[in-house]
């Protein structure tokens, strides 16, 4: 294992992040604040409590998940697509590193950023509503696992994409609908029965539900199932990354 290489990639990526701190941290905080103003304050004031939680507080776990999923994908896909696009990836490909080091470096940095963003959003939310956090460590676990899983997914996307369009279309076409229909703004139990069943095929439902459980101890599905789904998704992405690097798919000719 080339630890120097992991450290180098990680540091390099973190430096890049702080150089673009405005767009990478301020932007998600701003957009989350807007959700609070619109859904929490304006509309939420007319919605009664859900499962004994005020609407403004109810959407917090979902909003955190929503942000870190989209941020993880876009940051991590960009991190690996950009060097491919400019050609600087040659250095990583010719370095004495295996896919494990490359992945830990890039995904680790992107996931760190996501966890930071998630924490900042949580702090921001406290300015808008009163939040009880029942199980902080479980919340942190979901935050970290989801960040890593979606950063891995973004990493795959960044390697698969052969143009900027593909890089942006997947988050919009696939991830956006899944996250919006994943129960950020409502409880699955509020849906008609057919839609409840359909929702269970949406992996994001499990992630958001798990996060909400760690806040308010109520959830759409059991927390163990949520955790299981998160870990399964993470492992699936891990296997794809491994396959990509061992076959050289889109990286080596």
């Amino acid at each position, binding site marked *: 294992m*080339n630890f*120097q*290489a992991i*450290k*180098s*990639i990680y*540091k*390099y990526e973190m*430096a*890049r992040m702080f*150089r673009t701190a405005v767009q990478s941290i301020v932007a998600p905080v701003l957009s989350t604040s807007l959700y609070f103003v619109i859904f929490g304050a304006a509309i939420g004031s007319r919605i009664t409590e859900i499962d004994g939680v005020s609407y403004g507080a109810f959407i917090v776990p979902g909003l955190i998940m929503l942000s870190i999923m989209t941020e993880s994908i876009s940051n991590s896909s960009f991190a690996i697509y*950009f060097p491919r696009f*400019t*050609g*600087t990836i*040659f*250095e*990583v*490909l*010719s*370095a*004495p*590193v*295996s896919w494990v080091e490359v992945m830990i470096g890039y995904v680790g940095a992107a996931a760190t950023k996501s966890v930071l963003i998630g924490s900042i959003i949580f702090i921001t939310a406290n300015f808008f509503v009163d939040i009880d956090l029942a199980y902080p460590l479980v919340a942190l676990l979901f935050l970290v696992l989801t960040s890593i899983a979606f950063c891995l997914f973004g990493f795959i996307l960044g390697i698969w994409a052969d143009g900027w369009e593909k890089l942006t279309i997947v988050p919009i076409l696939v991830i956006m609908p899944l996250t919006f229909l994943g129960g950020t703004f409502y409880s699955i139990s509020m849906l008609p029965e057919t839609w409840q069943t359909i929702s269970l095929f949406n992996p994001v439902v499990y992630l958001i539900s798990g996060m909400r459980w760690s806040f308010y101890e109520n959830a759409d599905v059991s927390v163990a199932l949520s955790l299981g789904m998160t870990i399964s998704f993470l492992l699936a992405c891990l296997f794809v990354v491994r396959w990509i690097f061992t076959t*050289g798919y889109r990286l*080596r*000719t």
Partner: protein
Amino acid sequence: MSSILSVRQLGKTYAGGVVALKDVDLEIERGEIFGLLGPNGAGKTTLINIVCGMVNPTYGTALVDGHDIVRDFRKTRSIIGLVPQELPVETFETVWKTASFSRGLFGKPPNPEHVEKVLRSLSLWDKRDARIIELSGGMKRRVLIAKALSHEPELLFLDEPTAGVDVELRQDMWNVVRELRESGVTVILTTHYIEEAEEMADRVGVINHGEIILVQDKNTLMRELGKKELTLHLSEPLPGVPPGLDGYRVVLSDDGSELTYHYDTKEEHTGITALLASLQAEGIRFNDLNTSQSSLEEIFVDLVKRPA
């Protein structure tokens, strides 16, 4: 002593069906400077990229310092430095940071003194805090060289290091390469500029259509293949080539003061003795003479133009 690079029966066919390399065999000695010459599309970059791990070979093997480039890639790649042909547009990072990054990526612990030494040798020290995007093309190429040298490679590939580089920088680079050789680094450079190989290389390999068609010591090559020309500075100008010299391929200069004779050093009889005897018979006197060798460039064009 074993070779630092040993390429055995290496072949590459790209997905599109382009055969870029065919049965390439090549041995590079430790500490030498090897010039790989070939026209566009000959397969130079493909060969380098396979050894560096960016392209998978279709068949064959390559050993770096006795280690297989696929099985022992960690070992081989940590030995190799690569300066690619294309200039990848590095983004907003500074010269210092990008060089330090390369060092870490190749598994070497931080060593600011070494990075400083490399930057100074490439006249980049003043630019260490400049962002790469602000540098000129020639400077960017120096940065790429600095990145490759930052991790102290034993084997350095320079893929057309002086393409698009001004004369001064080219001289600088040649000096850097010489210093590297003195410190024991093996350098393999590809180039279209024949004078570069002529100036720098200890040995020269010529590749064409994916096949190595010749590998030879540069001086031997030039001696064996070189055509020479003998110029006689006459004591008195001649109005024309005297009839007695008709049998020789001699050319008289416009002002009639110089006679030039072309001969091939490979031929058994160069004809020089006979020519000089004929000159004496004609009573032509000369007060100086010199010979000059044709450049590697002419040799190279000669080789590549030959039918396969």
